[in-house]
Structures are given as C-alpha cells and as structure tokens.
C-alpha cells in the first residue's frame, strides 16, 4: 500500500509563507491501488492538486471515502478533474446519519447559491454509499469504518492490504469525557479501527493549552493523540489536521512535545507530498 498526503491542514486552507514546509491544503490522502482506479481519503482542497497530478491519466473508477461532511473535507471535490469526467465511475462513501442520507446531505453544497452546478448534473454521475457496518472490499483493499467522537456523524477508516494496515482518523476527540488512561480499550472511541495499525494518521490539532479552551470542538490535544496511539499499539503516529493558525515552527514545537511524551511509538508531522509505503 502506498499513501500520499495531498492535504493535512485542518479547518481552513492556510497557504502562505508560514506554512510552506507542512502545507496549507485541507485533508486529502491518495491510496495507490491499481492502474485503473483511485482510492482517496477525504476531499479537502488537497484533492485539486491530486487531480492535476494525474496529468491526463483517466481512472475508470474513483472511490472517495469521506470521514464527515465538514467543509474542509469536501470543499475540493468540486475542483477535482475526474469528478467531471463522464467516463469515470465515481463512488462516494461517507458516514450514515440519523435522518437524511449521504446524497441528501451533500447535495446542497453542490447547488446554487453555493455552486452553479447541481449535483445531479455532475458528468460522472456519482453514486453515494453510506459505510456498512461490516468490513468491505475496494479492489484489493479491505476497508472498515467506525463512528468516532466528533460533532455530527463522522467516521474513521481502516485500510488493510497485504498484511499491512493504515488507520485514518483526521478529526477525532477521543479524550472528550474520557480519561484515556483510565478506561478499558472498548470504551475508547475509534480504538477498534486503530488497533495495531502500522500507520495511524490522527488528529493532533491542538497543544494541551489550546485544547483546554476548545474542549468539545472535536479535535485532539498532543497528549491525547499520543496516548490514543499508544493505547492502539500503532506502529507510527502521523499528526494530522494541523490548526490553520499554526505555523511550521509551531508544528515543530508540537512534534517535539509529542516525541517527549511518546514511549512506544514513532511520531511525525504530516506534510504535503509525504509518501508512506506499507
């Protein structure tokens, strides 16, 4: 499995001289599977350069796994080349919700006055699938999803292929209402899909001081991200969903703190262009 980060900023795209090392594009990761298909995690603004990188290559099928429908995870889709290709089979997966289905919840974002084109007129004629309760397969990949702590319906994903596992929980606040050091594994949000993952890409938006001012906003402090990763026995933790107010220097200070806290895992900062081979 080969995973490439195309966007790892949280909340709001934040280009500028202070974010050039880690990047300002919002959440998007491409998973290489085979020549004819693309598997993508989230459609933040990072999906636009992903589409441009295809350089004329036309996938037959795109599977887009959306963790949730907050703007920073869907805003790039409208500017993703294959979305406008009538020959592409475009499948959008996302979390179930108590009332409206995935298409009903996404469609307003693709309709006037927010956008000139209605979703029903998108040339690829995307189909919408709410993630099933049981693992399913996409190409050679086994995919699992689990609802996780974040405002509104939101899932984390686990991808397994060739004996390796990648877990992706970009927006996650497992420490909300829970002392992560005091409860058993089964009571920790998201732990089931993160357990023993070779690579855990996880929310690390806030410093501990910031988190105290933002409890319930749906994101993790540095200590909670590290504790969660260690409880999950992940091989490597990639801090993701960087706060838009954090400069590159701020992020490196967060990494230093995470490395100080970590006792059994390797930690790094997600950055645009980072490629993981599993």
């Amino acid at each position, binding site marked *: 499995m080969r995973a490439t980060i195309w966007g790892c900023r949280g909340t709001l795209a934040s280009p500028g001289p202070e974010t050039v090392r880690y990047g300002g594009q919002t959440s998007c990761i491409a998973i290489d599977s085979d020549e004819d298909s693309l598997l993508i995690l989230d459609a933040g603004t990072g999906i636009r350069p992903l589409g441009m990188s295809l350089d004329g290559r036309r996938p037959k099928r795109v599977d887009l796994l959306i963790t949730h429908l907050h703007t920073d995870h869907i805003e790039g889709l409208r500017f993703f080349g294959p979305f406008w290709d009538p020959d592409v089979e475009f499948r959008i997966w996302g979390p179930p919700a*108590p009332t409206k289905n995935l298409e009903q919840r996404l469609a307003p974002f693709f309709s006037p006055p927010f956008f000139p084109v209605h979703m029903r007129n998108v040339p690829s004629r995307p189909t919408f699938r709410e993630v099933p309760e049981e693992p399913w397969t996409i190409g050679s990949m086994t995919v699992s999803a689990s609802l996780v*702590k974040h405002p509104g319906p939101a899932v984390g994903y686990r991808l397994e292929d060739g004996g390796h596992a990648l877990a992706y929980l970009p927006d996650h606040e497992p420490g909300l*209402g829970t002392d992560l050091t005091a409860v058993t594994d089964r009571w920790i949000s998201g732990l089931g899909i993160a357990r023993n993952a070779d690579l855990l890409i996880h929310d690390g938006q806030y410093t501990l001081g910031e988190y105290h001012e933002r409890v319930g906003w749906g994101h993790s402090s540095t200590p909670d991200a590290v504790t969660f990763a260690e409880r999950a026995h992940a091989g490597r933790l990639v801090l993701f969903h960087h706060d838009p107010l954090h400069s590159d220097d701020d992020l490196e200070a967060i990494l230093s703190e995470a490395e100080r806290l970590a006792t059994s895992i390797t930690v790094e900062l997600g950055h645009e262009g980072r490629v993981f081979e599993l």
Partner: protein
Amino acid sequence: MADDSDQRDLILILARDLTSRLATAAFVVDADGTLAYFNEAAEPVLGASYAETGELPAGGWASEWDPRNLDGTPVPLEALPLGIAFREGRPAHMPLCIRGGDGMDRTIEVTAFPLCARADQILGAIAIFWERPSGS
C-alpha cells in the same frame, strides 16, 4: 462498522460519558440488554457500585435488584422500562420496588428510552431513576 466486536458503539461510549457526569441516577444497557454502565449517582439507589457489579447480562441485572410492582408482584425483564426500551424501541416509565445490593428495599420511579442511531437500529437504552420520597 469496524471489524472489532469488542469495541463499544460510539453511541454507548457517548451515553456512558454523559451519564458519568450526571447527578441523576442513570443505567445504560447495550442492544443485548447487557448492563454496560451505571453512574455514581445510581450507587446509593442501587446499593451497589459499578466497580462491584461490572457488566451484567440482561437476565442478571433484571433479577439482581429484584424489581417488583408496588403491590409486590415481580416484574419480568420484558415489562421493565429498560426492557421495553431496548426490546421494543420506545420509551417507558414505571414506579418500582427494588432491593438494593445493600439489602435495603426502595421505591423508585424509572424512565427509560432507547438509543437509536437510526430509526431501525436500537443500540441500547438508558434509564434514569430516582427514589420516591418516603410517604409519597
């Protein structure tokens, strides 16, 4: 959704998080009716602590506190407010007599409601309850 039968559903995790912070006695069961959690406020009413009881199967907790109607007749699991909530997916209320883990008989009011992530999917239920003032 994940391939991990041991992982509690998020709705139950949130229910536990919420009730653990309430001063109202509360009792959480999963979709099978297994006692998943009760909070500290419930301990003096039930005469036991969650640390002592841990998780109990539906038949276990339903008999643990010997629930009876006010006339003293036993109330089976399916007729208890929690039984109705997690089996039938609707809220229910009932006054009950129970015998606490400390051996004390108490009269309580119980209101239970189902936990549904979707209309067709019952993930468990919560009961809130309180002791009736003596003489009422």
